């Protein structure tokens, strides 16, 4: 049976990531994992007329490269699952229009990468698809414009702020072939601890990450040592520290050498990114580029990626709502 425990799926039919791609922008090109990107752009407009159009192009490119690397054609892909941060997830929908694959739109904010991967692996595992493509994207300009301020506005960002990644990631999951295998996934509950500062997403999302990690270990009856690496999506430096403390409080042992965060990996300390990277593209590009490369090289054998999302809208914040968050975990093995 695929269902294990209360909220975890174990993929017994070994769905494989036959092709993956990470596409990024200029900031990502200056980061420490730039070499793991398939394509890097020198400016954030990508030759398009708006940030939103540029984000759509990033996603299209990531999808095309992932399909190409899997050695198949886009006509062979059965389903395209994608989400992003834009209102009405237009980046995903418009990319789906270009790609022409039957489309399932998702919204998990910055957890979209793992939400998509979990569902794509489920479709393939349960023989509902032979090939399923999971993708997601984010763009610094379009996200700042929608959620915070115009990019040229002189508002002073506090040290807890994070830098939205301009990037897109895609993974082609197949029922057979060679490549890293998706072995399990835990779907998270929405957790809201009453935090409401949109400049401190890490603090708001940490409880959701801890809740999902706890559920994952409980459902599968394992502990952190089962994995070589556990990476949260974009808690950033602030949220990461909070998560470590919170895990300890919940009695979950998390060795520091294996626990990390994509928002910390993607940018170097020298880059002016405050608490680290964020956005759907953060966990997607780091996972589908850097982490999968390490798995393929044999550097890592078993990883757990816990992508975290803050489910607020600009309106909910103005209406004095707090920030509900969710985290989805997917385990991938070499």
């Amino acid at each position: 049976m695929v269902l294990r425990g209360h909220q975890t799926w174990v993929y017994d039919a070994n769905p494989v990531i036959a092709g993956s791609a990470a596409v990024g922008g200029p900031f990502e090109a200056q980061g420490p994992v730039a070499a793991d990107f398939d394509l890097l752009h020198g400016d954030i407009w990508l030759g398009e007329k708006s940030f939103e159009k540029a984000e759509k192009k990033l996603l299209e490119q990531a999808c095309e490269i992932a399909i190409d690397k899997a050695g198949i054609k886009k006509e062979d892909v059965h389903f395209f699952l994608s989400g992003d941060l834009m209102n009405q997830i237009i980046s995903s929908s418009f990319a789906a229009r270009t790609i022409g694959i039957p489309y399932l739109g998702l919204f998990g904010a910055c957890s979209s990468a793992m939400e998509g991967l979990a569902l794509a692996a489920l479709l393939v595992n349960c023989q509902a698809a032979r090939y399923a493509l999971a993708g997601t994207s984010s763009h610094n300009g379009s996200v700042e414009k929608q959620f915070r301020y115009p990019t040229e506005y002189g508002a002073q960002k506090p040290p807890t702020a994070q830098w939205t990644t301009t990037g897109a990631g895609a993974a082609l999951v197949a029922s057979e072939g060679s490549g890293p295998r998706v072995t399990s996934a835990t779907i998270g509950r929405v957790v809201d601890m009453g935090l409401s500062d949109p400049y401190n997403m890490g603090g708001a999302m940490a409880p959701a990450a801890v809740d999902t990690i706890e559920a994952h270990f409980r459902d599968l009856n394992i502990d952190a040592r089962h994995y070589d690496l556990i990476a949260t999506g974009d808690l950033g430096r602030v949220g990461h520290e909070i998560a470590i403390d919170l895990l300890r409080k919940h009695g979950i042992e998390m060795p520091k050498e294996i626990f990390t965060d994509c928002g910390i990996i993607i940018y170097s300390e020298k880059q002016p990114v405050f608490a680290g990277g964020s956005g759907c593209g953060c966990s997607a590009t780091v996972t589908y580029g850097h982490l999968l490369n390490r798995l393929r090289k044999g550097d890592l054998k078993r990883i757990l990626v816990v992508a975290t999302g803050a489910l607020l809208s600009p309106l909910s914040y103005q209406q004095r709502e707090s920030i509900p968050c969710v985290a989805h975990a997917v385990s991938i093995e070499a």
Partner: protein
Amino acid sequence: MEKFLFAFLVGGGICVIGQIMMDVFKLTPAHTLSTLVVAGAVLGGFGLYEPLIKFAGAGASVPISSFGNALVKGALSEAERTGLIGVLTGIFEVTSAGISSAIIFSFLGALLFKAKG
């Protein structure tokens, strides 16, 4: 010459008040600036802002608080001329240079520039 020193001190001081509102009281820029404008209007109503401008020159007239004072000045001077209705008709009298140029040049900016990210 000392006008320059006073401009520096008073202008800097008003900005520090704004910074404290943002960092310590965690107000957004919009909330902070709106509060400063209202403060300028209230001080202007009591006749306390004009002396500050006489003393510190641009140190009091450049910060956004002077916008509130200028709005009140316009309202009151028109009210003296035409009665209570002047409070409505005179509000933008004094500040029109600031508002007009901000709108005009911002629009020109939008015609000429693209966001840099």
